[in-house]
């Protein structure tokens, strides 16, 4: 059943990954003539590396912002769009558009929208008499701006996933809830929708966390981790170390730590939550 998938997994994902991960214990550099076995030196360096620490912190903040907002937002949109017939197809498409967007093109748009002097966001703020931050270039707001873009990118996708989850809920249960006295949308949501969306929510949570943990494109295109590492995130650090600084060994070590930490996190999450959302 899983054999073809297993073989493909092995060949295309596991082996190459392992090969790369092995590099974590070497000082391999792209283009360097030789490589040396250096044991745990890379990990030691990581502990001392200011950039790595900042990068971890930024990643946590980013995930902490994007995951909850995009999940709740996606759920809210899904419910709102599906609540009526009118305009359903239209709004589904509208909210999904950001998902099909091309980061390079959208980055340009965001740059303009968030432009400190000529951008419409600040123009609006100015009109309201509120301060006008340097969204992408100030270390205070850069993560926030990236998180907003992150939410914009993923909210539509979460919405679609929630819609798929909504379809699996038997209509009969809503009928029962109504008869049982669920007075409004909120009651129905609490009694039926939310619990029965459990598996979907867990899935969306996992996916959102992973997607936001793996944030890279926007950082690479919009801020390059700047100013002064204020928007440096794990994957960008990894990429920069590996491909810009060519230090593949060190980059692999970062990857390894990243994988270990996140895997532990996910393991706990599925262990604890999977039980609670599947009602056999």
């Amino acid at each position: 059943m899983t054999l073809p998938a297993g073989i493909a997994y092995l060949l295309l994902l596991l082996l190459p990954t392992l090969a790369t991960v092995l590099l974590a214990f070497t000082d391999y550099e792209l283009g360097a003539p030789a490589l040396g076995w250096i044991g745990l030196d890379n990990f030691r360096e990581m502990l001392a590396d200011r950039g790595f620490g900042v990068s971890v912190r930024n990643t946590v903040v980013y995930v902490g912002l994007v995951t909850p907002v995009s999940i709740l937002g996606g759920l809210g949109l899904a419910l709102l769009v599906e609540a009526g017939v009118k305009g359903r197809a239209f709004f589904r498409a509208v909210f999904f558009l950001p998902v099909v967007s091309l980061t390079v093109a959208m980055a340009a748009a965001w740059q303009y929208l968030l432009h400190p002097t000529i951008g419409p966001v600040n123009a609006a703020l100015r009109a309201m008499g509120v301060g006008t931050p340097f969204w992408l270039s100030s270390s205070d707001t850069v993560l926030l701006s990236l998180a907003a873009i992150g939410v914009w990118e993923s909210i539509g996708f979460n919405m679609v996933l929630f819609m798929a989850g909504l379809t699996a809920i038997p209509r009969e249960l809503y009928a029962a809830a109504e008869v049982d006295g669920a007075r409004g949308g909120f009651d129905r949501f609490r009694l039926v929708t939310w619990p029965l969306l459990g598996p979907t929510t867990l899935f969306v949570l996992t996916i959102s966390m992973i997607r936001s943990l793996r944030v890279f494109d926007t950082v690479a295109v919009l801020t390059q981790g700047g100013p002064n590492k204020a928007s440096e995130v794990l994957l960008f650090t990894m990429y920069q170390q590996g491909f810009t600084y060519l230090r593949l060994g060190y980059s692999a070590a970062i990857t390894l730590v990243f994988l270990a930490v996140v895997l532990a996190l996910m393991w706990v999450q599925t262990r604890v939550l999977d039980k609670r959302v599947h009602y056999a």
Partner: protein
Amino acid sequence: MAGITISGVVRQFGATPVLQGVSLTVEPGEFMALVGPSGCGKTTLMRIIAGIETADAGEIVIGNRTVTRLRPAERDIAMVFQSYALYPHLTVRENIAVPLAMRRLSTPERMPLLGRLLPGTRAKRAAIGEEVVRAAAPLGLAALLDRRPGQLSGGQRQRVALARAIIRRPAAFLMDEPLSNLDAALRVQTRREIVDIHRAAGVATLYVTHDQAEALTMADKVAVMMGGELLQVASPEAIYADPADLRVAGFIGSPRINTLAAEADAAGRVTVAGLPAGLRTEARGTLTLALRPEALRPAPAGLPAVLEHLEFLGDGLLLHARHAPDGAPLIARLEPEAREGLQPGAALRLGFAPGRALLFGADGRRVATRADAALVAA
């Protein structure tokens, strides 16, 4: 006290008409059984009364409120679903508590954590908990209260659905085959339970069932529905003994009522296959004579028949035979002791009291009769 009045309810699914102008009144405190063949629209009617399905036309009044446009929650009814519709994520206890919790607790009180902190919530919850136990115990659910629906057998699920409906006193009860998955013993017991609740609360009840014993023993009135129309609404006795329509007569009673082609001559004398049936009528021409199985018994004179086989029922015996002249099947219900002397393949005569014969016109409507001369008395 509230009754239910339905007038002119019409419902189509696509091009298929399912309800074709149904009007029905359940008096306050009345227990009405709704019976009819599978797929005739019973569930659909129930759902329209509950407000889950919308009618294409027609009006629903519960008590003296017209509820046609109200949401289900505002109609104040309780319903047992044919498909149970239990909340899979809640335990049996929580499932049963839902209707009370939804009505007695305010939204903040129902919040998972916050709710506990509000004054009074605990007391209210405790009260609900007690009521749940009280409703569950007589249905044999006491030991299952902490299971999830997925861990229950079919009959157990059905009882949970029932408990969830009867836990509160609504303006009307709607029950869609609430006992179909229960064994006979439990069914009798639960039947009594429901009747008791109905007596005590006096709530108008509409009850769909396929079990005629249920319909006839529990209900004050029985409504027979077929092809999206109501054929007859009457007391159980009248439905059984005095059906207004051949289809009703054929539908009610198990085994099915025996029907024979009959003829009324110019004088109104009824004959079956040329033999006089001992009846007179105002109608003329082709008729149908119907006889309940228990109205037939082997007798020296009567309908000529050939015995096919005997079927043992425990408390009785079914005699399957064929009407000699036209091969129509005939079934008679006898005492178990009547078995002796009956041999499959043997010819015999099945007599009946003319007073128990029912006569229907060509259009299926009942035709009045009076005794002519007893063909054979039992």
